[in-house]
């Protein structure tokens, strides 16, 4: 029956070495009942990817495998993105080795979730030892949109677009959180935007349910979320994941939409042997803009495992004349109150120089300057980039923030609300005169079946610690 699995089509030269074995099995297969699927002999998918979809190009290659753009062959409307998880290889031959826990989570969660601001899964096809997740296609993502604005002449993202993106992003986030899903990897590359301006949270590869009762989220995981978007409590060694972690990332994304560069662009300290290093550089970047955290504003700070490392960081230096703040202690225990007062104003300074800044070269005639976001924009940012996870805004609170004119809930979106000062569009491109460039789709490799890279599953993943060690190197 393995005859029906095109033997190792996916592995070039490997198929040669695989042949004798396959031949033998095919002879044997002739004697077997072809209906004894799966539990005996060979599993065969009832649906074939290639019967149903035509791949038109290659989009991206990630840690787990590849993403392709496809059209339906059976009259399905719209475009699709097919995420293919690579199979594992044992030597040269592709083998079933058990699906990684993160892939299982992504498959299970995507199958449940249904919300306008979360990427829609169409189906999952398990075929030829590979997993194909078929999603609705999104023409853009935030990384690409931000990048477009950095191109000469550098120009800010229009404030209405920023507002709409933030509102939709928070709306998707609220949906995830009320359904006990933590995303854990929010960053511009994982936030999709459709051609009609709908924002869709994508890549649930690290997402987890946080309502498993007998089992807090302590276990196994050590590293979560791309370092630039990682919340301070994680950097300080907390192993307890809460929705607040996603909201820190949302705050970072907000800042990035304004300044067009990652707000805390640290360098990741590599894991050496078994010890998880303190991410000093990343924490330092945060401190430079936020000031040092202290226990007045974050009461549980002193009980964080990496608390002692804080004293080795350099507090931000303000340019003379810019601020009345005189001198900066090198130890967080001294001058507590002064740094407490300072930490807000550092971010405030960052905000006001960003929205009034020289990077914003848009003429009044174009889609408007960021200054219109005003102090409410700052308050929202500060609420999201709040050191203390317990005080940080929740998604629901953020949606009700005056920044959005008190629109509040999904029902306010896209609808003129007489009482609120303005309306938040469910199309983040509304009113824009120019369109963003479409996603780059390459033709190099669009054979979804044969393309093969060296084993590139999501690896070194915290909670995939049960995987054989050798794979950690693969990434």
């Amino acid at each position, binding site marked *: 029956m393995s005859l029906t699995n095109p033997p190792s089509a996916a592995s070039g030269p490997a198929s040669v070495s695989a042949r004798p074995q396959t031949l033998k099995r095919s002879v044997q297969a002739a004697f077997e009942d072809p209906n004894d699927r799966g*539990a005996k002999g060979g599993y065969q998918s009832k649906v074939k990817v290639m019967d149903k979809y035509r791949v038109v190009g290659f989009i991206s290659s990630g840690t787990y495998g590849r993403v392709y753009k496809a059209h339906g062959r059976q009259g399905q409307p719209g475009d699709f993105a097919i995420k293919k998880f690579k199979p594992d290889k044992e030597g040269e031959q592709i083998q079933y080795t058990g*699906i990684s826990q993160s892939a299982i*989570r992504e498959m299970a969660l995507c*199958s449940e979730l249904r919300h306008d601001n979360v990427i829609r899964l169409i*189906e999952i096809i398990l075929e030829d030892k590979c997993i194909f997740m078929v999603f609705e296609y999104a023409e853009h993502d935030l990384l690409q949109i931000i990048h477009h604005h950095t191109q000469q002449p550098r120009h800010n993202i229009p404030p209405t677009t920023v507002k709409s993106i933030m509102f939709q992003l928070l709306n998707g986030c609220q949906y995830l959180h009320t359904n*006990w899903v933590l995303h854990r990897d929010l960053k511009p590359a994982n936030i999709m935007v459709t051609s009609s301006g709908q924002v869709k949270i994508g890549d649930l590869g690290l997402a*987890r349910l946080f309502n498993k*009762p007998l089992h807090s989220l302590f276990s196994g995981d050590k590293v979560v979320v791309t370092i630039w978007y990682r919340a301070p409590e994680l950097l300080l060694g907390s192993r307890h994941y809460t929705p607040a972690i996603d909201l820190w990332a949302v705050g970072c994304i907000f800042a990035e939409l304004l300044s067009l560069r990652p707000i805390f662009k640290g360098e990741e300290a590599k894991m050496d042997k078994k010890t998880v290093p303190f991410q000093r550089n990343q924490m330092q970047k945060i401190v430079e803009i936020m000031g040092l955290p202290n226990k007045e504003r974050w009461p549980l700070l002193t009980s964080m495992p990496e608390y002692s490392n804080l004293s080795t960081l350099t507090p931000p230096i303000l340019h003379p004349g810019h601020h009345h703040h005189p001198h900066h202690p090198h130890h967080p225990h001294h001058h507590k109150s002064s740094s407490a007062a300072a930490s807000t104003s550092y971010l405030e300074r960052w905000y006001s120089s960003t929205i009034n800044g020289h990077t914003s070269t848009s003429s009044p005639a174009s889609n408007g300057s960021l200054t219109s976001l005003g102090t409410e924009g700052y308050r929202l940012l500060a609420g999201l980039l709040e050191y203390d996870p317990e005080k940080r805004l929740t998604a629901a609170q953020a949606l009700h923030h005056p920044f959005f004119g008190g629109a509040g809930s999904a029902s306010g979106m896209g609808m003129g609300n007489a009482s609120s000062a303005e309306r938040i569009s469910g199309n983040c491109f509304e009113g824009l005169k120019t369109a963003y460039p479409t996603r780059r789709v390459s033709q190099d490799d669009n054979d979804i079946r044969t393309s093969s890279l060296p084993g590139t599953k999501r690896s070194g993943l915290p909670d995939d610690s049960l995987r054989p060690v050798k794979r950690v190197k693969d990434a």
Partner: protein
Amino acid sequence: MAANFWESTQRRHWQFSKDELAQMRENLEESEQSLVQMFPLPQRRHLNIYFNQQLGRLGKRLGVRQQALATAQTYLKRFYCTVEIRRTNPYLVIATALYLACKMEECPQHIRLVVSEARTLWPDSLTLDISRLGECEFYMISEMHSQLIIHQPYRTLTSLQSDLFLSQDEANLALSIINDHYMTDLPLLYPPHIIALTAILLALVLRPNSPGGTATNMAAATAALMQAQAQAPGRTSSSNSSQNSVGVSDKERQQEARLNKVQRYAGFLTESNVDIEGMVDCTQELISFYECHEQYNDKITREQINRFVKARGLDKP
């Protein structure tokens, strides 16, 4: 969705009426007539008892917690809704369900370990390696359309335990009734909270040594449900048996306290506006399962399963 049962795939795709379920099974057997005739099998509940035992044995060797066992049992049930048992090696399917459930319930087991424990456990009925288990995992996920998140009754029980002032004994009994319901069709028929509420009811009324046995227990459970059903929402319980409590024996007093508790529970059900008819049906299913459990013959069940496994060469890859 994940936390919202009403929008979950479990509710939308994996909850059937009794007729639907019977129809699915009939269709399956019809399409496999000759196999079905050649290899008779015990009744489904007895098969379930056997599968449950085997799953439990494997789970024990691996130190798997109950939640994951329950999820594995649900996977088995779903899988066998669409696949004829005689076309599979049930030991392979059991091992796969457990391996997958452990990942889903956040207590992953290394595939190598699952394979080696399964081999030790079923040396004569299953030739197993990693690739075979991995393949069956594909098969299972595909049959379930990747709908792997299972809502279980345990959460309802835990959250109601204190609200309803359940004693530890009562809570434990309810827990074991929930564990047992995985050997019936109930997980495919009713939402988890109905199961949990029924288990609590039975825990309150079931008395193993009560004279009259099952019939009495059933009567007590039904009476409580009838009471709940009869009460219009908001109306307070009319009958009250606590008036003449002078001069009664300890035993009687206990009995009476229990009755009060049952009545209070009936009141709670009325107010919560739950599907009482569903609970009546669940109660009947459970009671009849316990009766049918007494006729279970392990040896015959095992032999009948092993017979088709061997005869059809399903033990080998």
